[in-house]
């Protein structure tokens, strides 16, 4: 047995059934502790990772599959999971890479092309105030994100929500830092314009 139980040990061990044959009780204790640690790692990060992937791929079913894939990839590479804080960062990287790969495979998205900064297509259907009142933040956000291209949305989420440095975002999107800075800038400008239009629309509507 070679699992490092001090970190995030594996679920399946070579001697997983040894307890029946009189293995030392400490082995099982260590195994259970590793399992507990792994369970906590999943539950602590599941919502965040699901939401990150969902915002990139914009589909619940795909987000579910990709979240599973990301966790399995991360937990299979135990050498990368020695410390929990680093493991969390590593997991985010795997999650965004998994989502980006998915978009590449399915939408043939080339992340290294630069989009022109055009005006969003439509007026927001509701103001942020109404959205708050009706507890529909998500509709407001999703509509805002929908004015961005896949590459702009991915770059913006990684930089401004996940707060990764632009260099890392470029690395994950596999394109130059200059291109990623362009995606980030365009995305910020589009989101700002969307929110400003929402505000103006809300002011125009009678209360």
């Amino acid at each position, binding site marked *: 047995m070679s699992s490092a139980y001090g970190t995030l040990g594996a679920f*399946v061990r070579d001697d997983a059934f040894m307890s029946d044959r009189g293995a030392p009780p400490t082995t099982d204790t260590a195994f259970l502790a590793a399992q507990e640690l792994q369970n906590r790692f999943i539950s602590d990060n*599941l919502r965040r990772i699901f939401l990150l992937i969902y915002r990139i791929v914009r589909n*619940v079913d795909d987000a579910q599959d990709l*979240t599973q894939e990301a966790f399995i990839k991360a937990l299979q590479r135990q050498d990368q999971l020695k410390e929990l804080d680093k493991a969390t960062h590593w997991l985010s990287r795997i999650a965004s890479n998994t989502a980006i790969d998915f978009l590449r495979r399915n939408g043939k998205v080339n992340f290294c092309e630069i989009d022109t900064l055009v005006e969003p297509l439509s007026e927001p259907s509701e103001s942020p105030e109404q959205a708050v009142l009706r507890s529909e933040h*998500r509709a407001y956000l999703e509509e805002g994100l929908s004015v961005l291209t896949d590459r702009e949305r991915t770059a913006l989420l990684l930089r401004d929500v996940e707060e990764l440095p632009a260099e890392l975002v470029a690395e994950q999107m596999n394109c130059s830092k200059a291109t990623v800075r362009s995606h980030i800038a365009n995305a910020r400008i589009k989101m700002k314009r969307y929110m400003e239009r929402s505000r103006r629309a809300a002011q125009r509507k009678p209360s």
Partner: protein
Amino acid sequence: MKHPAEVQIALFAGGDVGRWERWRVARHVARCAECQHEVQSLRDAGTQLRELSGEMPDLPNALGWNRLAQEITGNIRVGLAAGEAIALFDKPASTKPRLGWNAALLLLGATAIFAIAFWSSLPPQQAEHLLASLKRIRTERIGTVIRSGAAAPDEVVVEASATGIQVKENGRTLSLMHPRSDGATVSISMQGSAGVRFVDADTGQVTTNKVYYAEQ
């Protein structure tokens, strides 16, 4: 006053410009109310984006997050267990050293001595039977055991081939057939038994059929 480009302001608002550029834009923004407003709007939009990003989307079929989380967690566990199970089969082959030439020669010599001793200890009639059987196997590529002497009509013949095992006696035949398999191994014994061992290509299941002849 010349304003910095909109893209520059957007990068400046998020701290994504180099030191020189930051100093240059900051100097302008400090003196320009319009650009200050622009920077503030961009920062507000970023704050709002971060706040709203924690909102859960509408889940299909009124599936609550807790339920979905349980499902995802369960699938992660299954995936990890499956990965571990597959890894057991993909383990690299043992790196034990191969048998050296000296040991191989020794083994060969011992086998030859044993074969000669076995052959010389057999009664002449049995030795003839063995020789005849081996000859048939070589020429007909089947395994045949003949209980006594040549295959006379009243003799019991146990015959094994790649398609099955047959017992022939007094003109009657009992066949134990098996599915066609490229990997069938036919075996016979001097005690009057014949066997076929084959592998099911779909399931990997190994089946051994062995038929013994017992004198009453």
